[in-house]
Every structure is written in structure tokens, then in C-alpha cells.
């Protein structure tokens, strides 16, 4: 009889983490940035139909980096969670905090029990109503959840992006066009190329709007904003 060989838990977790990190490093990046009128999400995404950014609820959006099929499952589960909660209770009871918690639980338990961890890193953002502050949650491949301020980045080039933003002021009072220019400049610098508007997926959560605040910014509008 073959003896099952022993692997220490530390070793197993380290291997899984390394595997997940490698997977995520291959993917493209996403930037989320607070600005004067809400939250901006910019993804380096050459596809016009396979989205990395999505509407989740009235004031909540989702962004996923890493393996498409994996974050797509998470995205759909999140929308189901949000819509069900809004239907059962009330629309105002759907919060990014509860969604981020649910994601953290799911991703964390997959990381510790399944043989293969999820190769994803996601953002759940909520724009505040009136004077309430925004919320940005980053959830990592192991289920760890980080409450971010101002700017958050996920995906392959996130380390480089953070270095880029460290040297610059990212005041949450800047107008949309400035936040957009800065985000695109950051993605340009880490990918060492000039990203065309068609190669970007951009969306905003607009603070001042009622009801569904999520809006995609098409490449024509993007071009005007970038050249303003």
C-alpha cells in the first residue's frame, strides 16, 4: 500500500498562493478611483463584449481581474445575491459591505479547501448617497478583504500601478476628466503602450443620480473626456 505523503499546511498554502498569484499576474489590470462626482472604474480590456466591469446594484459596481470564467461566476453570484436581498427586504438594504463579505467567505473557503484556488482579484465599490463616503473593497485570491481609500488597483500590474500612484496626488475632489486621464496614464505607463479608447473599458458610479447610478462610458465620450 502506498503511504499518503505528508505536506505541511504552510507549504500547501504557500504553493496555492504562488499558483494564484501567477495566474493573476498574467491578466490585465483595473483601476478604481474616487472623484468629485462618484467612482471611476477603468480596465485595460481589448474586448468590447467580454466585460471586466459590471453593474451590481443601484450604487454598487463590480470589477474582476484574473481568469475570466472564474470572476464571471463570482459576478453573477453577486448580482443574484444583491437582487435577491433587494427583493426580500428593500433596495436600500443592499450594501457593498455585505457583498464584499460574501465574496470574501466564498473565495476564502475555496482557497483553503479546494485543490485549486481561484485566480482572481476583485473590487466591490459603492458610491455614497448625498454626503456619505464611498466604499471600495478589494478581495484577494485567498479571501482577504481590504478596505481601500482614494485609489484601488487589481490585476497583473497592480504593484507597478501602486508605485505609479504613490508619487501622484489622487485627491478625491478632482473632476471626472482628471481622474480618467490619471488612470489611463497609469495603465499606459505600466503596459508601456498608448492604450486606445477602444482598448479601455470605462464605467462610473454617479453620486448625484437617483436609482441605478452605474453608467458605461463609450469610446466616443471617452475620447472627448480625454482630450478635454
Amino acid at each position, binding site marked *: 500500500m502506498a503511504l499518503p505523503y505528508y505536506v505541511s499546511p504552510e507549504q500547501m498554502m504557500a504553493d496555492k498562493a504562488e499558483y494564484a498569484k501567477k495566474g493573476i499576474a498574467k491578466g490585465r489590470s483595473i483601476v478604481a478611483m474616487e472623484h468629485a462626482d462618484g467612482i471611476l472604474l477603468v480596465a485595460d480590456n481589448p474586448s468590447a*463584449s467580454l466585460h471586466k466591469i*459590471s453593474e451590481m446594484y443601484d450604487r454598487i459596481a463590480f470589477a474582476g481581474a484574473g481568469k475570466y470564467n472564474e470572476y464571471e461566476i463570482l459576478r453573477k453570484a453577486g448580482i443574484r445575491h444583491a437582487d435577491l436581498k433587494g*427583493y426580500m427586504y428593500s433596495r436600500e438594504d443592499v450594501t457593498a459591505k455585505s457583498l464584499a463579505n460574501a465574496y470574501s467567505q466564498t473565495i476564502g473557503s475555496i482557497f483553503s479547501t479546494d485543490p485549486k484556488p481561484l485566480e482572481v482579484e476583485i473590487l466591490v465599490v459603492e458610491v455614497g448617497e448625498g454626503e456619505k463616503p464611498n466604499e471600495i473593497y478589494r478581495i484577494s485570491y485567498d479571501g482577504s478583504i481590504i478596505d481601500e481609500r482614494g485609489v484601488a488597483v487589481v490585476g497583473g500590474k497592480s504593484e507597478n500601478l501602486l508605485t505609479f500612484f504613490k508619487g501622484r496626488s489622487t485627491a478625491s475632489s478632482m473632476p471626472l476628466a482628471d481622474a480618467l486621464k490619471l488612470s489611463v496614464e497609469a495603465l499606459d505607463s505600466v503596459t508601456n503602450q498608448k492604450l486606445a479608447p477602444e482598448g479601455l473599458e470605462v464605467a462610473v458610479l454617479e453620486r448625484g443620480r437617483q436609482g441605478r447610478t452605474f453608467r458605461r462610458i463609450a469610446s466616443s465620450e471617452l475620447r472627448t473626456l480625454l482630450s478635454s
Partner: protein
Amino acid sequence: MAGDRQATEGFQVSSRRIDKVFRTDQHSAIAIAGAAGPAIELARLFQIELEHYEKLEGDILSCEGKANKLAQMVRSNLPMAFQGLVVVPIFGGYDLKRREGRIFKYDVTGGRYEEIEYYAVGSGGKDARDTMKLRYRRDLPDTDALKIAVEALYNAAEEDVGTGGPDLIRGIYPTVKMITEEGVRDLEESQIAEACRALIASRREKA
């Protein structure tokens, strides 16, 4: 799309100001008739279903798709309908592909029938339809459509005990929504009130 504001409980008025017309998404709305509880629930669930589909798929359902979805939902209410809790909606939507407005009516079994021109349901539905039959033209401007809708509801309220007329004392007027290529728009209450007052004034002249 327009609806009166009265809910009836047996021979009594249970509410003077409920809404029977609901926006369901950017380009559609439903109007409900029948048992208020299940009907309002149907409208709410239908609205959530459309939004849910849109978010999951990243695309909006076609006008036809929405109408069929509603048919399934009405059909699933059939056991309740046998118990007397009937729900019959009208679905109105702007078809972005065909670039025209469309009207669908339903029966209790979930049968879905497309109507052209106009339709009305509910206890006073027939009276409202009779008015529209006489007044309807193909090329109606917005303001005339509002006039006809208000008059249809007024006549229904005169003939049918289940339909409420405009309440000038409390300031309760019909709900009116306009569905166009630009989206669903709630008409200003002042505009609806003005149409009601004009109608009543013209009736008074005749009397």
C-alpha cells in the same frame, strides 16, 4: 399608459391613491388590474426580473422577450386565479429594434395577445375602450393622447363603481406615463390635473 387610483374592497373604497401603472425598465411599463396584492407583487417582481436579466447578460431583453416573460409570470398565477385572485396586466413597451410602441394584453391563463392602437383592462375597461374607440387617431400628438386617456378613465369612473374618477378636493389624479424612444417619463401632476379640469369644464358646459 394611464390608470385610475382607486382600490375597491367589496362595496367599499379601500384606497383612493394606489398606483396601477409601474415603470418596469427604461423602455417599458405595466398597468395592472385585478387583485391588488398579487398584482402589485407581479409588477415588482417583473421589474426586478428585467433588471436582473440586464445585469447578468449585459444586454436588455427585446420588447417581445419582456412580453413573453410577463406571460409566464401571469400563467404561474393561474392556481391563484382559480381561487378568485385574478391578475391581468397590460404591457406597454417601446421596441427599439422596430422603432415603434407596442401594447400587449393578457388573459388569466397567461395568454399573450398583441394589440394595435389602444387597449384597457379592469372593471371599467370596456367603458374606457369605448371612449378610445371613438376618439383614437393614428397620428395623435402627446397632449391629445393625454386628453383621451383622461377622458377614457373619466367615462369608466362614471359607469363603473370599481373605477375612481379624478378627486379635485384631495388633489388625486390618474397616474400617466409616456413611453417613447427616450425612455419612460412620468407626466407632471400639474399637467394631468389641468387635463382633468379641462375635461370637467367641458362637461359642465354641456350639462
